[in-house]
């Protein structure tokens, strides 16, 4: 099925060019990329359950060269929708961004709509890809949701990965799945648990103030893990939205059909009036590499919230621009590879990871079903045990009652 994964060349190039930022804001840790001229209102990419900020690297590279500013974030560890809205707002304040355009895929699209609903003044436009309006069907598919925060990491990963349709894929789609799987591996248990909790936290999107003409729907028309009826529901909600459907692309068109997605993103931004600034691009790319060369020796994690850095494109993105780690840099344990050029060594390093994944994939295929029942069953048993005394009590009462009435007779 999935072979040994080695980071694609353009991803290695991306990692060498674009600094990764990690900042704590309030109690939340934010991990994001921010690239492109600072004067342009940003396009912020929100990934789905199985994604990280890195999955949009093709968008960041392609659009920033054209003069757009692209920000891509990891969904932080939030546990309900209210918390998400607040955390995201604080994040925007911290990076000093006011008006935003959101591109959200699957869960990211849902979160984008939530934010647009509750903070209408900040969201200028939306691009929703394979997204949904409500979480009900996900929560009914996950009866073990209440214990998600105690579920071991491998089971969560397993659950997230089963959401990705496997089977024979066209090569680009297969590569996109491989890339996302490698990203899921970098996620911690808490990350996964929080995202799964968000997908099942009961909520639905209310009416948006945003006019439909500022919304683009970019669904893939072949297949994806979001059921068609949920996607239909979404497109019925926004009848005037632009339908930028892709014929094929699977779950991760931003990876498998990046040129088409980038074209649609560009068309969307043009329609909603975002002017790119290609004239400022040169400075940015210099700044990006310059910034990394000045602090490439080790990853620094400043623990303070960054000062509002709204300086022009020349101002380096300081707080903790961590770069130079070739792939999956912050899963420090298994993935910290020292040299991206030693590609042979890399293959040796990564392969056990994937073999392990494959094994767990096959082994827990059945296990997962068993486990979900195994967790649900004890809950039932406890429930019934609690009911038992009650039952005995009623029996006793009826018996007493019968006995008394018989005495009377």
């Amino acid at each position: 099925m999935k072979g040994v994964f080695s980071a694609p060349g353009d991803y290695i190039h991306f990692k060498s060019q674009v600094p990764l930022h990690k900042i704590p804001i309030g109690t939340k840790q934010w991990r994001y990329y921010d690239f492109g001229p600072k004067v342009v209102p940003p396009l912020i990419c929100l990934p789905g359950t199985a994604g990280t900020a890195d999955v949009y690297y093709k968008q960041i590279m392609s659009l920033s060269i054209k003069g757009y500013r692209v920000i891509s974030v990891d969904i932080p560890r939030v546990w309900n929708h209210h918390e998400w809205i607040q955390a995201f707002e604080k994040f925007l304040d911290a990076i000093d961004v006011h008006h935003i355009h959101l591109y959200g895929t699957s869960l990211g699209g849902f979160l984008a709509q939530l934010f647009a609903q509750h903070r209408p003044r900040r969201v200028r436009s939306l691009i929703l890809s394979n997204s949904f309006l409500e979480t009900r069907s996900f929560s009914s598919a996950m009866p073990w949701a209440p214990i998600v925060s105690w579920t071991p990491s491998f089971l969560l990963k397993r659950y997230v990965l089963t959401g990705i349709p496997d089977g024979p894929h066209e090569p680009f789609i297969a590569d996109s799945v491989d890339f996302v799987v490698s990203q899921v591996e970098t996620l911690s248990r808490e990350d996964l648990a929080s995202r799964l909790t968000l997908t099942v936290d009961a909520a639905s999107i209310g009416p948006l103030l945003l006019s439909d003409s500022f919304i683009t729907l970019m669904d893939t028309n072949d297949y994806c893990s979001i059921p068609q009826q949920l996607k239909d529901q979404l497109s019925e909600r926004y009848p005037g939205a632009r339908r930028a459907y892709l014929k094929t692309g699977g779950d991760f068109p931003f990876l498998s059909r990046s040129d088409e997605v980038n074209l649609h993103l560009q068309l969307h931004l043009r329609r909603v009036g975002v002017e790119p600034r290609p004239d400022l691009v040169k400075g940015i790319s210099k700044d990006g590499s310059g910034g990394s060369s000045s602090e490439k020796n080790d990853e620094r994690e400043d623990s303070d919230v960054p000062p509002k850095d709204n300086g022009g494109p020349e101002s380096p993105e300081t707080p903790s621009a961590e770069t130079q780690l070739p792939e999956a840099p912050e899963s420090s344990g298994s993935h910290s590879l020292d040299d991206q050029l030693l590609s042979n060594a890399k293959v040796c390093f990564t392969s056990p990871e994937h073999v392990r994944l494959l094994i767990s994939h096959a082994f827990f295929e059945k296990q997962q079903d068993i486990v979900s029942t195994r967790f649900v069953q004890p809950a039932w048993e406890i429930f019934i045990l609690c009911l038992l005394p009650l039952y005995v009590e009623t029996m006793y009462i009826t018996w007493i009652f019968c006995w008394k009435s018989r005495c009377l007779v």
Partner: protein
Amino acid sequence: MASRRRMLLKVIILGDSGVGKTSLMNQYVNRKFSNQYKATIGADFLTKEVQFEDRLFTLQIWDTAGQERFQSLGVAFYRGADCCVLVYDVNVMKSFDNLNNWREEFLIQASPSDPENFPFVVLGNKIDVDGGNSRVVSEKKAKAWCASKGNIPYFETSAKEGFNVEAAFQCIAKNALKNEPEEEIYLPDTIDVAGGGRQQRSSGCEC
């Protein structure tokens, strides 16, 4: 609950600048015409729901810039095209002569699997201009060219008056549909939302 995916048909409109590609698309989708000329930058698209033989389709019509210098958006829009519409202005000989270039350009960029039988449709636009007096490309000549390229369907249209536009696009949709294979390979392999019935893969190795 069985909501079927709506088939997506992708149509690309090509032709020299100013022949009325955008106007034709606008006339067909929005039934609007504007006399003001505005060059298309790169590419843009409109979608229209069409019904054909009891099935609904989404027609995604891509309008491209005639000017080379505006073709900055790359060639992503060529991918997966189901039909290519070649447009010329019946009053401008050059735009007719260029049809061959556009056709070849398309076949190179889109590289369809069966270039010989890829559906094209040719539209001779602006037949309304000057009551037809300024016309330089005769219908006969255009039809002869179409016949030489494997019987390409030909329509004479006026985006301004809306003449023949509907009929032309009907034909375009029909041809696009013929091109689209009955995609049985890509049956939706979605996750089971009900959770229970996850198909047990009966592969031998379970360890």
